Structure formats: C-alpha cells, structure tokens
C-alpha cells in the first residue's frame, strides 16, 4: 500500500539521478511512497535506493524486462500500481518515462499530467502547474478521478535527501509469461562520455548553426565546456545540420536544463530553444547579431564573432 508509486529510471548500470526528483513531488503530495524499478539484474541499483524515505523499493527484476519495451513495462507498472493501490504514479520527464507512463495511464484508465513544475492547493484540491506553448505560458491543471499519472520536470524539483533509515526491498511478482510480446529491441547507439550528464551539469555550453560543422562544434563548444567542466548542448538547427547528435538537443522537444551557468554560442534565441533554458541561473549569450532575441533573456550578452571570441575565452579561463 502506498499513496504514491515512483518509477525510477536507470541506464542498466546506475540509477539516473534526475529520476529521483519525482520523489520530492511525492513528499509534497504527502502520504507513503514506494519506489519502483524495472529491469534485469537490479541488485546493486535497488540497494542504492533504500535511503530516500520510501516505504519500500519495489523491484521487478526479470530477463524479459532487460530492455524498456513500452508494452511490457506499462503492463508491469500498471499492475504494480494496482497492487499497491497507488493514487499517484510518478516519474521524472524523460524519453523513457514519456514512452511508458502514458501507456500505463491508459491501462489504469487514469488521466496524466506531464512536466509538472509545481503544485498548489486551490479550493481544497491539488492543482498542477505545467508549461505549454513551448514554455511561454504555464497552465494550472485540476485532475479528477481516483488515480493519476504525473511526470515532473527535473529542474523544477530539488533532489531528495538520502538520509532516511533504509527501507525494505521487495521483489514484485508478476506473470512474466503473460507479458505482451509484440515489440523487440534491436540495438542502441549511445556515446559514453566523460563529460557530465546534460541534465545534471552545473555548467552547460551550447552551440547553434553558426558553428558550421562537427569539427568546429567540438573544438569550440566542446573546448569551452571542457575548460569549465561542463556538458554540451545544441539547438535543433545544429542537430539537423549534423553538427551534434540528437541527445544534445535542448528545447521544447529536446531536453530542459537549468544549470548554474548556460553559455549560448551563436544561438539566436528561438522560443522553442528558450523553452529548454529559461530556468538557468546565469545565461551568457555570444552572438554576431545585436538584435538576436537571446539577448533579451541573457544575464550577460556579448556581441561579436564567436569564432574569435570563444578561443579567447578558452584561453583566458585557462590562464585563470
């Protein structure tokens, strides 16, 4: 039994820290909460989740769940929610949770609210605040019904403290043979990087179309990011032009980041991109065009040719 059930994400090796932020929403909603992990060979990961104040870490561990195929995962998640009589099924917004949670919601005949950034009590019930129109507006949503599925925007909730007394780890029993079987995982292409995760980094350096090509992008954007120990991001235009891989994309349909320092190189500031960076503490914009919209939200704006400026910046930082 748990008021909230939180879906924790991992990359088959370790827990994705941003997925823990949903715990904070569960704490705000009140009541007991359980953490749910699905996968194959989850011993180590489950152990790392016991101190977040949950009533239990519920583990669905089976070779059939080795890959996050939505049909199987949604079935297990829905079953776990029913068994625990959970009213709130939570997750942190990511391509993983976006793939499986809406399907689980349908299986549970429950409504879903995506990308919650805050909750508020209005007229005796909880309302959820979420971005719409590429984050240019925010809507306050009321949800009816016994049960709801919610995803949170990681940058809007603090990570939970890991200082509670350890909770039990429970194995979730389900009938593996009756899992759906109409999807098959074939392969993945992921680069392991020494750089910090884009959604967790303290500093993000991002590049747009003016970076010309992959080599220049890596040299300037990568060079500056490495000098600052940061992660690399890109605009849609840069990804479309092949300068950066899709997982660097920041914006309305890519990742949302809120680092301490966001440096935008050759980025004009289209609404769709700003949607992904507006909560950054400090935004620095370097652009040749003095009228670029990015200067309207940048904390510090420097007008000039990034091909001249960025090498100077890298050098100045290196010299300390």
């Amino acid at each position, binding site marked *: 039994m748990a008021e909230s059930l939180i879906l924790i994400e991992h*990359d088959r090796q370790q827990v994705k820290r941003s997925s823990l932020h949903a715990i904070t929403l569960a704490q705000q909603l009140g009541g007991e909460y359980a953490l749910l992990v699905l996968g194959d060979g989850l011993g180590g990961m489950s152990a790392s989740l016991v101190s977040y104040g949950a009533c239990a870490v519920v583990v669905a561990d089976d070779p059939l769940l080795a890959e996050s*195929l*939505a*049909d199987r995962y*949604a079935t297990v998640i829905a079953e776990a929610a029913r068994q625990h009589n959970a009213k709130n099924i939570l997750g942190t917004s990511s*391509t*993983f949770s*976006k*793939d499986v949670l*809406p*399907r689980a*919601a*349908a299986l549970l005949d429950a*409504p*879903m609210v*995506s*990308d919650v950034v805050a909750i508020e009590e*209005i007229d005796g019930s909880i309302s959820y605040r979420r971005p*719409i*129109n590429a984050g240019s*507006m*925010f*809507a*306050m*949503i*009321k*949800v*009816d019904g016994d049960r709801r599925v919610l995803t949170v925007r990681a940058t809007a909730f603090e990570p939970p403290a890991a200082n509670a007394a350890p909770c039990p780890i429970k194995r979730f029993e389900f009938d593996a043979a009756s899992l759906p079987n*109409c*999807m*098959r*995982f*074939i*392969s*993945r292409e*992921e680069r392991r990087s020494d750089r910090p995760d884009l959604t967790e980094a303290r*500093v993000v350096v991002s590049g747009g179309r003016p970076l010309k090509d992959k080599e220049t992008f890596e040299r300037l954007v990568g060079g500056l990011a490495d000098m600052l120990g940061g992660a690399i991001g890109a605009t*849609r235009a840069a*990804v*479309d032009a092949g300068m950066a891989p*899709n*997982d660097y994309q920041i914006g*309305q*349909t890519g990742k949302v980041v809120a680092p301490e*320092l966001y440096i935008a190189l050759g980025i004009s500031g289209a609404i*769709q991109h700003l949607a992904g960076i507006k909560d950054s*503490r*400090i*935004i620095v914009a370097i652009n040749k065009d003095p009228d670029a919209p990015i*200067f*309207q*939200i*940048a*904390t*510090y*704006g*420097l*007008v000039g040719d990034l091909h001249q400026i960025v090498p100077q910046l890298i050098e*100045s*930082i290196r010299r300390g």
Partner: protein
Amino acid sequence: MKILVPFKSVPDPNDATVAGAAVSTPKSVINPFDEIAIEEALRIRERGEATEIVGATIGAPAVDEQIRAALAMGVDRAIRIDDSRALDPYAVARILRAVVEIEAPHLVIMGKQAVDDDSNQVGQMLAGLLSWPQATFVSKIEFLDNKAHARCTRETDAGLEVVEVYLPAIITTDLRLNEPRYVSLPGLMKARRKQIEILTCDQLGVTVRPLTTVLSVARPPKRGAGTRVESVEELITKLKQEAKVL
C-alpha cells in the same frame, strides 16, 4: 496497407511575435509533428507500401482549413470528429480508439506531441487502449517481412535506439523523420474533390468525461533584463565577481 494519420490543428508556432501572446484570431496550422506524420505516410505510399491514407482530427468546423491542407498534401480522405470542447489527451486517445476500430488501419502514425499542449501522451495512450505495439519519437521507419513488422529508430535522451514492432502498431514521429512537402496548388484543387466525413462522439459511442481541467493560464515571470559586456575580459570578471559562477 491502410494508414491512419490523426492530426491536430494548433495556433501557428511561427506566428506570434511575442511568445504566447494572446492574438485575437491566431492563424492555425497542422501541428508540425503531425505534418511530419502525414509526409511519412505519403512517402510510404509513394514507395508502394501503402494504398490508402486517412486523416482524422477533432474540432469545430474551423479546423476544416487544416483538413483541406492535409488533403492537399495528398491524404486521400479525412474524418472530422465534430467537437469544440477542450479535450485532454486521454479523451483524445479514447476518441481515436473508436476511429481505429471503425477504420481498421494497419498503421497509425502521428506526431509525438502537439506544440501547443506539449503533453506527448496521446499516441502512447492509444497504443495502451488498443493493446498495440508502439514506437515513439521515431526518426526512421523501415518495413520488413512484407510489412509484418516495422523497424523504427527512436531518438532518446541517450542517443538512438532501434526497435521492431509488429503491425498493426502506433508510431509517433520526431523532428528528423522527414521534411514535409508544401501544399501545391494542384494538390489544393484536387483536395476540393476529396471527402471529409463528419462524425460525433455519440456516433462513435464515446462519452467524453473531462478528467483534467485547465483552471488558468498565465505568463511566467520575465527574467530580469541583463547587461551587455564589451569584451571577453569583462565577461570573465563579471562571471567571477558578480555572478560568482566561475
């Protein structure tokens, strides 16, 4: 193979000079991700792998303009579910399930999210309701085994993933799947002779009960205006001393 392409009419994301400004009569367009879905269906047909493309949308008569644009791109016929209420994604999914049950397509392909609502739920919910396989955020589609499966490349937070789904299936499109063709005048002319079927939720046997309600919508507080710096030195000094972030 019959393909069903559900699409949504949204305010033109390129129109507002100020983001989200309440424009009195904003121009509407086909949701850009759904346009990509329509384009993909057309290309699948042009390769000889599909025989019929049916469009479906929910809305008041005003959205007929977007329906005609879809027909002008090359969709064969379209269904409009006449409903001007604000529907949440789950309601939309339930309505689309009824349409799928009538039309019996082999493939449903639609945008991953609507650029006004940004929920990214409908395709997945529809798949759950139908118990069909799903492939979301797809950037490449290939049919195998005489169209028994679709091999799809998906864009994820970590990079790319390839999955295979048995048909019938739901596919949601991501940005880089294709670049949609523009509506041509000959297409526009041909579209005038194509059929638009109007249905209601009653006829579909779907009762829409609003489970989520929008209480209010507001602009977020603006970020304070920043300052211009004149040189790299000045920037670094400010980042170190003022912002204390370096």
